[in-house]
């Protein structure tokens, strides 16, 4: 099922005017604070009425202001997870989880036991929300939304209020969710690493408008978008790889469409598909294959796009086999190397530059 969203709304500070589609899998709404991400989620959930708009979930019209259709939240079947968990304080974890189930018209979908097992919340069932940690509460909130048997899951920065440790604790559960359910997930975040791990599609919002929408690898490697994607330091791209071998000296050899890639030990079985985020500033470029260099990964590539920055930097988008890679170098180097669209180059990546958090669990593309 695909969700179609088209909204216009005039706020005091800015005007929201967006249109995009949410296919199956995780679609990330990405952008800086104040870009309108949360307003879009509210409008989809029916908690805010936009000035104009159309929202369709498959064949069902949730909102069409021109035709005067505006389904109330309880009839939209959008499972929401908010930044604050919004659990019911007067109910136990078990009752919180069952709440939406009770109102759900069809009791199909995932079972209570499946959700409890997937989120690892079995030991919490008899407790009350106030006695849980932030990470536990958020897991219960996700389970509660899931058990209401929603046709879409809408998550508004579900990890933003948690510290790094708790985030790392929940991300694998979200990956399970993505891979084990068929529900389209609209995921709002301003964290590049979260989106890289979870999303298949990204919609980049800036000042109330869609700047770019498309597959994660394509959007995140777009050099023109890097100022919007959390600044040049956060810029990076996502490549897909499969585990080829676990080697004796602690390295893992990954197979990519452009050749082998050696990274520090990745805990995954041989043959497992992975997504690896590579920060643009960790990639060096050379016009000849470098010899006598410590970096293990030297991959042939072609320059696809070049964007000279306002400062000393430049962003270079490379085609690396079937993947796109983003490299951040200086303008001086770009000029010195004579880089232009179509130039053949070698991308050099230090193995140790890739942190474990940049490697996502296998993505099953729907």
């Amino acid at each position, binding site marked *: 099922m695909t969700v179609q969203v088209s909204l216009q709304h005039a706020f005091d500070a800015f005007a929201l005017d967006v249109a995009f589609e949410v296919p199956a899998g995780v679609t990330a709404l990405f952008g800086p604070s104040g870009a309108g991400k949360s307003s879009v989620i509210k409008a989809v959930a029916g908690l805010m009425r936009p000035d104009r708009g159309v929202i369709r979930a498959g064949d069902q019209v949730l909102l069409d202001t021109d035709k005067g259709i505006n389904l109330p*939240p309880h009839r939209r079947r959008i499972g929401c997870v*908010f930044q604050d968990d*919004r659990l019911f304080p007067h109910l136990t974890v078990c009752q919180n989880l069952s709440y939406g189930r009770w109102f759900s018209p069809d009791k199909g979908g995932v079972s209570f036991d499946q959700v409890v097992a997937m989120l690892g919340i079995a030991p919490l069932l008899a407790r*009350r*929300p106030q006695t849980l940690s932030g990470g536990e509460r958020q897991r219960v909130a996700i389970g509660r939304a899931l058990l209401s048997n929603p046709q879409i899951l809408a998550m508004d920065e579900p990890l933003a209020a948690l510290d790094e440790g708790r985030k790392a604790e929940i991300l694998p559960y979200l990956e399970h969710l993505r891979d084990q359910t068929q529900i389209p997930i609209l995921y709002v975040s301003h964290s590049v690493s979260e989106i890289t791990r979870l999303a298949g599609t990204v919609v980049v919002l800036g000042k109330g408008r869609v700047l770019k929408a498309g597959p994660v690898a394509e959007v995140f490697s777009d050099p023109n978008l890097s100022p919007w994607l959390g600044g040049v330091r956060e810029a990076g791209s996502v490549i897909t790889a499969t585990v080829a071998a676990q080697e004796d000296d602690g390295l893992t050899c990954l197979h990519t469409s452009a050749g082998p890639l050696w990274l520090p030990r990745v805990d995954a079985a041989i043959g497992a598909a992975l997504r690896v985020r590579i920060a643009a500033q960790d990639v060096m470029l050379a016009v000849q294959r470098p010899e006598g260099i410590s970096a293990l990964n030297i991959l042939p590539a072609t320059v696809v796009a070049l964007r000279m920055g306002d400062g000393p930097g430049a962003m270079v988008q490379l085609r690396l086999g079937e993947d796109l890679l983003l490299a951040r170098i200086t303008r001086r180097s770009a000029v010195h190397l004579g880089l232009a669209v179509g130039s053949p180059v070698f991308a050099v990546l230090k193995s140790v530059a890739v942190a474990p958090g940049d490697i996502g669990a296998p993505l099953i593309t729907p």
Partner: protein
Amino acid sequence: MPDWLSPDEWRAVALSLRVSLWATVLSLPLGILVAFALARRQFWGKQVLNGLVHLPLILPPVVTGYLLLLTFGRKGFVGQYLDMMGVVLAFQWTGAVLAAAVMAFPLMVRAIRLSVEAVDAKVEQAASTLGAAPPWVFATVTLPLILPGIIVGAVLAFAKAMGEFGATITFVANIPGQTQTLPSAIYAFLQVPGGDPQAFRLVLVSIFVAMAALVLSEWASKAVARRISGA
């Protein structure tokens, strides 16, 4: 019937309990409604409603009683129509219920309003996204969360009704066995020579009932709050 109270005294106590109970039970739904309107809604005349609700708190009770008489007396502008339907409030125990309810209403509304304002509307929104229609959101989320406030409001109203004197005696007079409530009875005993012992017994009953109500409400609202906070 305990023999340490004379029949007249006992009747006054029983009548007061009955009047207060009815006054509380009957005004509770309206109290919740008004508390919600004042806490959540913006509407034309909100300040007027707020003022009307609070008027009995600040007016001299005798004025409230007189206004009730003008309105609900047999010739009053509402009372005359009630009279046609065979309903008479003035100088009846049912009139005492009305007087007590009106006098206790501001206390009840204030307590409930505070608890409504403390409810996080975002939690109610979460319930609606989980498929609960507005009446269900109210019944399963809002009502349990404001229950401590409702208990406190109801007990305050009951205690106020037990002690209500000025408006009651003005609207329904002081007829033993019919409209003579506990405070009216105390007043009557104090007006006759040698009535002090009877008055004093009723004062003790009055103190006992008030304390019991207070302890009960503290206990109940704490028990409910503990359930909500999970501590």
